[in-house]
């Protein structure tokens, strides 16, 4: 399609008995000026929007900076106190654990001192105790120790000289102790001989006696 054909296609068809007497230059100038006004107005609106956005961004940034400074000041002010409080907390936790251990010890369902006394009295001279450990199994989260519903376990580590059959009779003897009289029916006593612990020269055997009570 050549340019002239395209031009004739695009140009409006002539209408008979119709002559346009417009001075097109005036109309074009007017349209251009109105386009200029629209462009200027659009630019003005855009500028106002941009100024508004930057203003609010700046305002938000300042607000954030102020908040950051406030938090920083608060942290600076309270760090020492916080560290101190953390130390106190650690001390408290340690103390609490210690108190709980002690409470556990005193809160055993048996009278431990009486038990030890009876244990020492009833002990045959062939048996020698190395360690006696008693612990109470209770819910660590419970603040008050409930004695009635506690299980306990007493472990006695020691050495038996000579025949180990003596342990069997001693086990029976242990269950007869007055200190555990109240729990006798639910109490179990058994012993273990620790492997490779027999001293052939001295004729001694290491043992472990467990006295268990389940609530």
């Amino acid at each position: 399609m050549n340019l002239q054909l395209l031009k004739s296609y695009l140009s409006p068809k002539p209408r008979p008995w119709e002559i346009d007497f417009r001075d097109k230059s005036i109309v074009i100038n007017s349209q251009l000026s109105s386009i200029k006004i629209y462009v200027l107005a659009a630019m003005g609106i855009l500028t106002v929007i941009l100024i508004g956005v930057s203003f609010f961004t700046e305002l938000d940034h300042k607000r954030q900076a102020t908040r950051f400074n406030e938090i920083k000041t608060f942290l600076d002010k309270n760090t020492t106190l916080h560290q101190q409080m953390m130390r106190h907390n650690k001390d408290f936790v340690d103390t609490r654990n210690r108190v709980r251990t002690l409470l556990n010890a005193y809160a055993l369902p048996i009278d431990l001192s009486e038990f030890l006394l009876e244990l020492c009295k009833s002990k045959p001279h062939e048996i020698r105790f190395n360690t006696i450990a008693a612990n109470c199994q209770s819910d660590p989260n419970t603040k008050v120790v409930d004695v009635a519903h506690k299980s306990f376990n007493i472990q006695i580590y020691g050495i038996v000289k000579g025949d180990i059959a003596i342990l069997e009779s001693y086990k029976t003897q242990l269950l007869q102790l007055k200190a555990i009289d109240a729990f006798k029916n639910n109490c179990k006593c058994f012993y273990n001989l620790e492997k490779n612990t027999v001293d052939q020269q001295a004729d001694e055997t290491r043992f472990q006696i467990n006295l268990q009570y389940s609530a």
Partner: protein
Amino acid sequence: MDVLSSFLGSKKQKFIYTSETSCLLATVTKEKKSTLSLSDLEELANNPLKENAYLDAPILKKITKSKNAICMVAPLSRFIYKAKLEAKTKSKGIQGLIPLLKERFNADLKTNQIAAIDAYTGIEIKDSANTVLPDHVCFIGTQKQEIKMIQNEFMDCQCIPKKLLLTTLTTAKGIMDYTKLVKITQPVLFIDFSVNQSLVFVLCNNHIEAAYPPVHGLKSLISLTRKACSLPDDVSTYKYLLQSMTEDTQVMETITQRMCADIKSYIDFFEVQTSLPIEFLFINGLSPQLAWLTQCIGKVLEIKPLQIDFNTWLQTHKVNTQGNEKMTQISQPSWIGMLSAVFNYFR
């Protein structure tokens, strides 16, 4: 938005028809099934006696911000000349028309804006290499300064015209369209009534058959009425012409006598030349209050005023007349030019 709608080919168009005596406004919408719907119809009076202004202030207020409106105007200096081109002139092309204009019609291209159209087809003759001049040419024009002043008046109230047409040609096109529709083949005497002068030409078989020198206009009628009725000034005389002239047939005939005599000579000349009797008369540019002038001149010249059956014309062009109370306004001859422009735009 206006640019976009003009690009997409908007189906809604505002039309402003202004003459020295009235202003007509209409908004036309092309609806489904190609029907036309006319709305915002208004008819406002324009004072023809004011100086240095074309439209009255209330009209300017009404048309403010009417962008892309099709405006029809009637500058006082408008003219229509018709010429039969000789072979010698035709051979020179469009350049040959310039001396013809100057010598025969004393029309200067420097001071006037002139368009040449084929008197038979109405197509504008443009200056191009392939242009072949027709045998009969009409020159339609007006003073450059005046049309510019009118356009500036429109532009000052932000009424940017999409087209600026002459009421004379638009109405003549309307008459030709109507006579073709109702199959009137006899010549119609067309008088374009104006303030200083009235243009006279003959329309026949959808073309301009003849154009004659201008005859008296409104100012002449006012001057004669003022003398005949001893009225104090032009303004009161104009009011008298509008309001009381229908009752005073004697003065009516006296003041139109000279005008009618001139026209009569043209009619005789036309009828002798063409052997075609002029059967109908149409006077353009009259407000409804001046409609008596058509009756008066028709009676003196013994020519029937052309009666327009608006219903038939509107229905032919698929104008939706239902449910519009203001459609009754369109029954005056002053609406012919407006309707013609509407039909020509939406054809």
